[in-house]
């Protein structure tokens, strides 16, 4: 018995010491005499492609229905029902993957890496909500997005936050978008997916950190309406810009605004704007000077933020595996650390050239330098445009839903007396006929 084991060990050791890294037939497969049939590994198939296309059809239907409910049907209840259905389909049934928010990264990667082909389903998930937003406003956010829906459900005690704070917090979404595109384009990581706070609810499993993050978001969401959508969501900031120029938009009143102020506090997302007062004449020159200053500040902000992004490249590039590995190998080679990691062991086992690894890591760091300029410059531009936007006055005569910030949830409809009058009229007409 023991001798048998020794023979095996000796054989194994002999073969192993011959420098063969990959396994091969150390022990030739036997020829069976008893008519034994070898089983072969089972290969259960992944989800069929047809279901992926069904997802696209469901998305298209949900977007169309949502747009119809928001712009024509105009009842919060119908929008709410569709929102819950979407939450169940895209959230709990499809486990929140793939979603348009995450699709940003696939698209960014396919733009920058010629070897990566984005699956056509992911492309549809990215583009369809954009097209619908360009026509109908953010009806995707209203009743299709599962992340928005789960936050909308917990919004019980909405409080309003000042406009400057909202605008300032929203800056984070732009930074997140810029960072997510940079990390995806360099092939480092899909950070939007990694830090999706609600996905562990959809899957009913996941890492503890993400679960805690999700619980925090939902808790904050009881008081502050849809915090992820307003301050974090990188897809939301794209939709904002398209919603600004959309063909049709949410109207609070179906008729003419009578400035009754009833809808004033109805929006939990702070998207309803009151009519503006007349602009006092003495403010005019001061504002003109301030605008000129801000326009001059724009290139300065773009450059300085770009420079910050560039300077951060030793930090940002560490998100990439190769850079992390090269750092680790360098520490090990120079004797600064004694132990090894799984990754460094695996690298050494391949016998690849360490200098080539260092060169790769430097290449990637240079890419992050360029990416830092672009991402930082983008953030600087956003800050500058925000400042300029705040110093411009828009004339409003009615209570209006702000195009960019309106999530088309339909809460304000029921507050408008004109809406009530119209519905009653409609009911009476139906009753008579």
């Amino acid at each position: 018995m023991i001798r048998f084991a020794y023979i095996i060990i000796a054989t194994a050791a002999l073969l192993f010491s011959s420098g063969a890294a990959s396994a091969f037939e150390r022990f030739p497969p036997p020829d069976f005499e008893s008519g034994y049939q070898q089983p072969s590994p089972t290969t259960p198939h992944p989800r069929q492609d047809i279901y992926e296309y069904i997802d696209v059809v469901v998305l298209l239907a949900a977007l169309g229905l949502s747009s119809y409910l928001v712009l024509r049907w105009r009842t919060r209840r119908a929008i709410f029902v569709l929102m819950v259905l979407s939450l169940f389909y895209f959230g709990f049934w499809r486990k929140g993957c793939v979603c348009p928010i995450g699709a940003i990264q696939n698209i960014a990667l396919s733009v920058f890496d010629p070897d990566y082909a984005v699956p056509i389903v992911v492309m549809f998930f990215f583009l369809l909500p954009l097209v619908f937003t360009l026509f109908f406003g953010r009806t995707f956010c209203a009743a299709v997005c599962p992340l928005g829906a789960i936050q909308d459900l917990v919004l019980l005690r909405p409080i309003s936050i000042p406009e400057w704070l909202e605008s300032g917090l929203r800056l984070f979404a732009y930074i997140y978008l810029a960072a997510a595109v940079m990390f995806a384009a360099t092939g480092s990581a899909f950070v939007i997916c990694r830090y999706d706070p609600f996905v562990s609810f959809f899957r009913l499993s996941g890492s503890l950190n993400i679960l805690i993050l999700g619980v925090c978001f939902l808790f904050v969401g009881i008081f502050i309406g849809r915090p992820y959508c307003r301050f974090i969501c990188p897809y939301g900031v794209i939709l904002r810009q398209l919603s600004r120029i959309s063909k049709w938009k949410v109207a609070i009143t179906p008729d003419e605004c009578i400035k009754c102020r009833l809808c004033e506090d109805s929006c939990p997302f702070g998207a309803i704007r009151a009519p503006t007062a007349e602009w006092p004449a003495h403010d005019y020159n001061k504002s003109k000077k301030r605008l000129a200053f801000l326009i001059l500040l724009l290139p300065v902000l773009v450059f300085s933020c770009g420079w910050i992004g560039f300077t951060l490249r030793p930090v940002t590039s560490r998100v990439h595996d190769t850079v992390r590995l090269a750092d680790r190998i360098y520490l090990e080679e120079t004797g600064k650390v004694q132990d090894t990691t799984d990754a460094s062991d695996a690298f050494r086992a391949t016998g690849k050239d360490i200098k080539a690894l260092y060169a790769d890591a430097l290449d990637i760091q240079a890419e992050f330098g360029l990416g830092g300029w672009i991402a930082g410059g983008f953030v600087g531009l956003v800050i500058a445009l925000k400042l300029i936007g705040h110093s411009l006055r828009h004339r409003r005569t009615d209570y209006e839903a702000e195009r960019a910030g309106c999530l088309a949830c339909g809460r304000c409809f029921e507050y408008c007396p004109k809406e009530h009058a119209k519905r009653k009229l409609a009911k009476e007409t139906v009753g008579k006929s």
Partner: protein
Amino acid sequence: MAENKNGINRRNFLRNGLWAAGLTGLGAAAGFLSRRSSKRNTVWQIDPEICIACGNCATYCVLEESAVKCVHAHAMCGYCRICFGFFGPEPLDINEGAENQLCPTGAIKRTFVEDPYYEYTIDESLCMGCGKCVKGCKTFGNGSLFLQVRHDRCLNCNECSIAAACPSGAFKRVPADKPYLLKRVDIDKNNTAGRTPASSQTFYGLPKRQRDRFGAPSNGVDRA
């Protein structure tokens, strides 16, 4: 200020112009992306030649019970009486007692075939993808045990959590119609049946240099 409701004023003209520009932009983006897109869907899979069986698959999957399981290519197996994927961890003290079994969940079944050969099969309902048996089989045996993403379980996340934690870069995206990277099934013919050549696949999209980071050692490069 009296505004001509249907006519052209500066604001409406600007808005319509921007809208047209937005539509054109989206159209251009759609055109560009459809050229770069692929009708073939992709799924995650482990390249068993690169996998180092570190054990991350058991713990990093978003599923409670990992989507990664051990697969046994019986055609490669030596049917050893003392299997190093089955017994462990002290090779010199090995006897066939149950206390020496390597698998923490008892997912490997050992059955007698004919003297002196034993068949080893995986009970997938018990396997948690820790890769302990894989390591043993790879180090001392034929390497017929290896880890694979089981697609009846995998959620096909946009970013696989295990892939992000994989120290050897063994996770890659493979076409959904060839979802497994099985080790060669027919060793006698020395072909690659059931296995798509690694170079012809569309990967998750990691840049080329990283993709071949743990590939075959390049010839002619002297090791530092």
